[in-house]
């Protein structure tokens, strides 16, 4: 991979038209090589090579100890046939739909609200607060939330008890634990799409709003007819990035529930981890990884396709 990765050296273009020749051709090759080598070799070994290896490994059964055995499509069939793997993919897809919808709704609402008239210090304050969870580790956040959502001594149930709601088994009931995963994930992630929307809103010219105000358009009408159409390119990017990130969810369910109760909060990446590093089924783990990669690419392509109908470019 490494030697083949550098035929560019051959290329050292003889342009001769530059301000001054940069020395003989071989010297220019060496220069290009030294600039590129660390990145190209590194990406070759640690990203491109592993992608190819993953795809190949997906057709084998391998436990590291004995020799790999070619098993054809068995590992891929498992993704559909094995109940745990299947449920994990379904969980992941449901999670993506619910979490991304909530994340986009919350962050869009907050971005629109923060763009209203307010003192600069207030805007800076709110923006910093909404941004803050992004700098924390998902593991730490999950540690904190695990205490807050504890059934007996958690603050969430204590607050609910004040309004007369009895102890919710947040981390031990299948539905409630799925809800917790969504809430904890969105709590930490909404700041990212919020930033995108704030940037998108700032790029909408003020004159458009002024003109429509003169024509008598009020808040909701402006939101529907001006803000949302002009924000649609940002919306596409926000959705694409939020979906890609949500499809990879791992840290929160690993720390909060370990995938349980049962398989209720097991996700695709958790199954990759467990197949490879718990059950030593490296081929199956690779197959699940390949399916996840195809899913990410497919869903992204689908969003760009659908966007042609909804996105409005100025």
């Amino acid at each position, binding site marked *: 991979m490494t030697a083949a990765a550098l035929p560019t050296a051959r290329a050292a273009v003889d342009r001769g038209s530059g301000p001054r020749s940069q020395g003989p051709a071989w010297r220019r090759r060496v220069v290009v090589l030294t600039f590129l080598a660390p990145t190209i070799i590194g990406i070759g070994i640690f990203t491109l090579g592993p992608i190819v290896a993953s795809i190949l490994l997906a057709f084998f059964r391998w436990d590291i100890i004995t020799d790999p055995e070619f098993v054809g499509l068995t590992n891929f069939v498992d993704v559909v046939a094995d109940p745990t793997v299947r449920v994990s993919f379904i969980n992941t897809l449901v999670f993506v739909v619910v979490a991304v919808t909530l994340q986009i709704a919350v962050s869009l609402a907050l971005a629109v*609200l923060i763009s*209203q008239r307010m003192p600069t210090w207030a805007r*800076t304050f709110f923006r910093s607060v909404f941004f803050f969870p992004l700098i924390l*580790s998902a593991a730490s956040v999950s*540690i904190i939330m695990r205490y807050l959502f504890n059934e007996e001594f958690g603050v969430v149930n204590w607050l609910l008890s004040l309004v007369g709601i009895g102890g919710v088994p947040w981390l031990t009931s299948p539905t409630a634990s799925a809800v917790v995963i969504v809430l904890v994930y969105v709590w930490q992630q909404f700041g990212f799409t919020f930033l995108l929307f704030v940037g998108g809103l700032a790029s909408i010219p003020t004159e458009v709003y002024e003109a429509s105000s003169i024509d008598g358009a009020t*808040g909701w009408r402006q939101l529907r007819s001006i803000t949302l159409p002009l924000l649609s390119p940002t919306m596409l990017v926000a959705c694409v990035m939020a979906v890609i990130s949500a499809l990879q969810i791992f840290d929160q369910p690993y*720390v909060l529930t370990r995938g349980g109760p049962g398989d209720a909060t097991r996700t695709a990446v958790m199954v990759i981890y467990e197949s490879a590093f718990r059950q030593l089924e490296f081929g199956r783990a690779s197959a699940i990884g390949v399916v996840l990669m195809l899913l990410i690419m497919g869903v992204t392509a689908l969003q760009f396709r659908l966007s042609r109908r909804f996105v409005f470019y100025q």
Partner: protein
Amino acid sequence: MTTATVTPPAPTTRAAPPRRSSRAVPTPSTVARTAFLVVAAALTLGPVIWTVSTSLRSPAESFTLPPQLIPTDPDLTPYIQVFAQINMGLLTLNSALVTGFIAVGQMLTAALAGYAFARLEFRGRSLWFSLVLATMMVPVQVTIVPVFMIIRGMGLSDTLLALILPAIPTAFGTFLMRQYFLGLPVELGEAASIDGAGPWRTFASIYAPLALPGLAIIGILAFNFHWNEFFRPLILTISEQNFTLPLGLVSLQGNMGTGSISVVLAGVVLSMIPALVVFLFGQRPLREGLTAGVSK
């Protein structure tokens, strides 16, 4: 350590926001909007404030309800006990080494490759560049099994290098630096080469210094990501002496979640401090980096 610390004085330089209501007296809808923002801010800050104040309660008291938002009787024993229960010093050192080497390594390699893609001429340049870009889309979970094998083959299993080496080559950083170098005037380099400077000299004395703000973005993003990352350390390290902070804290909380709350939270608070420093002083580059390549 509470609300005051999360309001950096960074002035907004964005264009004036659209004005919806230009009346001086707050209307009911303005009040409702502001209330919504305040509630959202409270929900965002609440868990953080609870974490800090609970970490200051005595370990025995930390389970008791109601929660305290401001500790009435601050107690530092959790901060002492966390050092006794896990090796916070070593965890912090490991995290700092891993994060530091990755950040510096990414800045160096991305500066070089970004410069080559922006300013050096060679055949297949755009082809190589799109190949690098294509790897940006592939999540780490897909490549982790072969990466684990390669690390094992290199004899680096269960070392900090296993975390550092694979994270240094950065497609995103290369992309960012290429854009950055493309934005710098080409005349500077031409002038330098007329004066007899070779490509290395032109890069090192003219362009690299001008690209420092771009490099800062890469460094801060790398710090934020790798200081907090959990998945790779979980797989690539085995013995506790090679754990990074998130891993150590999760194991302190324990499978059953029974670790003493205030002690675990003291560790969480300590692990947040470097991230908080970056937040206070590097929020702007961090924001720009996170949204880079998104807004055209």
